[in-house]
């Protein structure tokens, strides 16, 4: 299965800018479906970015993050060709991870 995570990490020499787009319904648990029944909550709770063996960014999310979430941040360090590991886990225990090369 194709990864749910799409990442672009670009190094400017000093800092690395990371943009990530994840496929996930991010159901908050407050929205009703066409039949008027509540759609149970289903959202990513934690998203972790790891570079060189340590976390460079940890996102804790609630159900109010938009569907197919997008996040952008930057960190100091990171060279072209370095690996960036991204992983998420949702409230149902599902998870996914991928590794991206810094460009």
């Amino acid at each position, binding site marked *: 299965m194709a990864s749910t995570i799409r990442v672009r990490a670009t190094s400017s020499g000093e800092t690395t800018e990371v943009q990530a787009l994840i496929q996930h319904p991010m159901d908050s648990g407050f929205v*009703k479906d066409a039949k008027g029944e509540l759609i149970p909550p289903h959202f990513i709770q934690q998203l972790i970015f790891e570079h060189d063996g340590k976390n460079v960014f940890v996102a804790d999310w609630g159900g109010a993050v938009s569907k197919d979430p997008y996040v952008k941040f930057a960190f100091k360090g990171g060279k072209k060709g370095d690996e960036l590991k991204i992983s998420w886990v949702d409230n149902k225990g599902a998870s996914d991870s991928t590794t991206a090369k810094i460009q």
Partner: protein
Amino acid sequence: MNQPSETVDATRRLILQGAAVLALIAIAGIRFGLTPAVAAADAKYPEDAFKQKNSDDAIKALYGKTAEASDKIKLDAPEIAENGAVVPVAVSSTLPDVTSMSILVAENPNALVASYRIPAGTIPNVANRLKMAKTSNVIAVVEAGGKLYSTTKEVKVTVGGCGG
């Protein structure tokens, strides 16, 4: 004729006892062995904070303190959001030693939307997209040098992001 059936019973009893003991060990393991290990990890999900309805309660549950207003936080959000399901919000700060940044929507059913941990070396500038039920204050909270700061901006929503 009685003998074999008694043996079977005894065996079954032993198996059941064994299963019970195993179950107890497993429960004990979960209670005393595994939970502290998970809690000790530096990336525990703050479930309680995300369940709070009110923004003040959520900030308290997350940081254990209250925030003071600061003009050193930049909260980038639209004046008017046409679609409450996707509201682009960015937070950045010029405060030194930022360790955490959170975004809350006061009028959402659960105020806390996202909380970001900023380890040393990561730049305190985060952009993401969030859902807003209706017109509301968006609050950005920044923890820097052990203190808590916040800034607020009202975003008008024309179509709510919660099935409205």
